[in-house]
């Protein structure tokens, strides 16, 4: 069929657009992936009270700034969706790139944070706490990177007023990434 | 029934045999019923010229009862099996009878190490006897074992005793057995533990009281007897 869209894609028996339905299923499967990892962490964290000592070495300030950055980028992507629905493609485009910039800030801060920690001798193999710290935050960062790439790709379509509904889809995904961080932050940084 | 294939040699082996028999009878009954009905239906309702199939939705009450009654009876069978399974499990794995002697079993790639308390029947003293791949126990004595592993997972298994327990590095698993038959049996490792898994074999000697004492006397370390 080459580039033509199948009829199947245009149907909507549930009354929900297929894309949105799929994004929710993606999020469902992500919940169990992150949930599984965090539950493993939680069990061992509660088993070993001395992990509080490790988590006191995390940079709460950097983590806090990152929470702020992600919350703000959530705002910009929800506004992008708002303007995309109103077909104001320039505003939507700008806000998508603001979100991408937010993601970039997040990664830069994360990078600085990790560099300092590694310099201070806290590497992924230092102790089990740090293994979880890098694995969970790393998995989350991968999702941030994936979201940024997708947003860049979607923004091109948005400029041409094509596939505007995808802004909402990436928005839901991005909010989920934000949500994961909302839980990662207290689990890894605050709980002492 | 299972005795025909592998003799039992411990106090709880009989309980496990009986449970297996119970499951065999109940599950076997259902297997035979289902298979007979299946083959009978295939034969009875084979395609015959001029005979049209019936239209049965299976949603009317009198049709559903053919499903619901078996379903209820299976539930009852399940309750029976659950009851006896948990009873046996509780006896074998959960509730330990008081020990008359305690041994340590250590699995490693690819051998079993046994530490027996020796003549004083206390672990951690000088007269402890350490052996490799060879365990001597006294018949009709309740033993507790402390199962450990130094590297990967192993599984201490003695089919005659109906005894099986994984050894996990970092953990100490406690269990019990009481040999009832004199003789010598294979000890297996029943959890894959690397390329030598297939040679990880031990020998279990269940000795009579006199034989056992003789063995203890001849294997007590020299420094324990020196003073």
């Amino acid at each position, binding site marked *: 069929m080459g580039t033509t869209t199948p009829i199947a894609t245009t149907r909507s028996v549930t009354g929900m657009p297929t894309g949105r339905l799929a994004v929710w*299923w993606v999020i469902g499967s992500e919940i169990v992936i992150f949930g*599984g990892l965090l539950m493993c962490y939680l069990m061992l964290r509660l088993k070993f009270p*001395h992990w509080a000592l490790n988590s006191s070495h995390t940079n709460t300030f950097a983590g806090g700034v990152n929470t702020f950055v992600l919350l703000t980028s959530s705002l910009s992507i929800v506004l992008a969706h*708002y303007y995309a629905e109103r077909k104001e493609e320039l505003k939507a485009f700008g806000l998508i790139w603001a979100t991408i910039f937010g993601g970039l800030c997040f990664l830069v801060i994360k990078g600085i944070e990790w560099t300092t920690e590694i310099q201070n001798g806290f590497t992924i193999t230092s102790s089990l706490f740090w293994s979880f710290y890098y694995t969970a935050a790393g998995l989350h960062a991968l999702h941030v990177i994936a979201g940024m790439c997708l947003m860049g790709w979607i923004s091109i379509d948005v400029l041409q007023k094509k596939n505007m509904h995808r802004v*909402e889809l990436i*928005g839901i995904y991005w909010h989920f990434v934000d949500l994961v961080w909302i839980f990662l932050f207290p689990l890894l940084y*605050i709980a*002492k | 029934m299972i005795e025909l294939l592998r003799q039992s040699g411990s106090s709880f082996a009989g309980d496990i045999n009986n449970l297996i028999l119970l499951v065999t009878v109940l599950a076997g009954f259902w297997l035979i019923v289902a298979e007979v009905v299946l083959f009978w239906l295939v034969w009875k309702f084979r395609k015959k010229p001029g005979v049209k199939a019936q239209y049965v939705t299976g949603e009317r009450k009198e049709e559903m009862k053919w499903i619901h009654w078996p379903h209820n009876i299976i539930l009852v069978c399940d309750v029976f099996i659950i009851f006896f399974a948990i009873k046996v499990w509780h006896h074998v794995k959960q509730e330990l009878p008081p020990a008359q002697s305690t041994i340590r079993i250590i699995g490693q790639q690819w051998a079993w190490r046994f530490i027996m308390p020796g003549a004083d029947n206390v672990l951690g003293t000088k007269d402890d006897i350490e052996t490799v791949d060879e365990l001597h126990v006294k018949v009709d004595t309740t033993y507790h074992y402390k199962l450990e592993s130094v590297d990967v997972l192993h599984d201490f298994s003695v089919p005659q005793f109906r005894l099986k327990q994984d050894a996990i590095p970092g953990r100490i698993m406690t269990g019990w057995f009481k040999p009832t038959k004199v003789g010598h049996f294979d000890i297996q490792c029943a959890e894959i533990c690397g390329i030598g898994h297939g040679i990880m074999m031990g020998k279990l000697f269940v000795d009579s009281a006199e034989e056992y004492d003789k063995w203890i006397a001849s294997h007590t370390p020299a420094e324990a007897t020196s003073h």
Partner: protein
Amino acid sequence: MAEYVAHSHDEHKDADGHGPSFYIKIWAILLVLFAISVIGPEFGHRTVTLITAFGIALVKAYMVAVNFMHIKHERKYIPYIMFAMLGMVFLFYIAVSTDVQATSGTNWENAAAKAIIEENKDFEHHLEH
């Protein structure tokens, strides 16, 4: 495809009917909550930490899901599916914690874990410095 974009557009109008100012308001509330969740644990009181760090995280999650992800306006089964997935996660925790979180149980003990806890038992002393 144009058909359902227009459709979802309408849906949003009556679903929230909010303009950008609404989203900015939600964002501001989230920031306040976030500030509480950072300040609360500074007191070092266990219950306060739990409530401010994790209780507030739940509130924030709820606010994001409802106001940004519009989960309320989806078909009813979407939140149910999400809760079912969360249920899986908690089921996993409940069953597994008896083995992994505990250091001993019926007829077993995790000697290695106990040794680690013993080795680090004066960590609170270090924490104060």
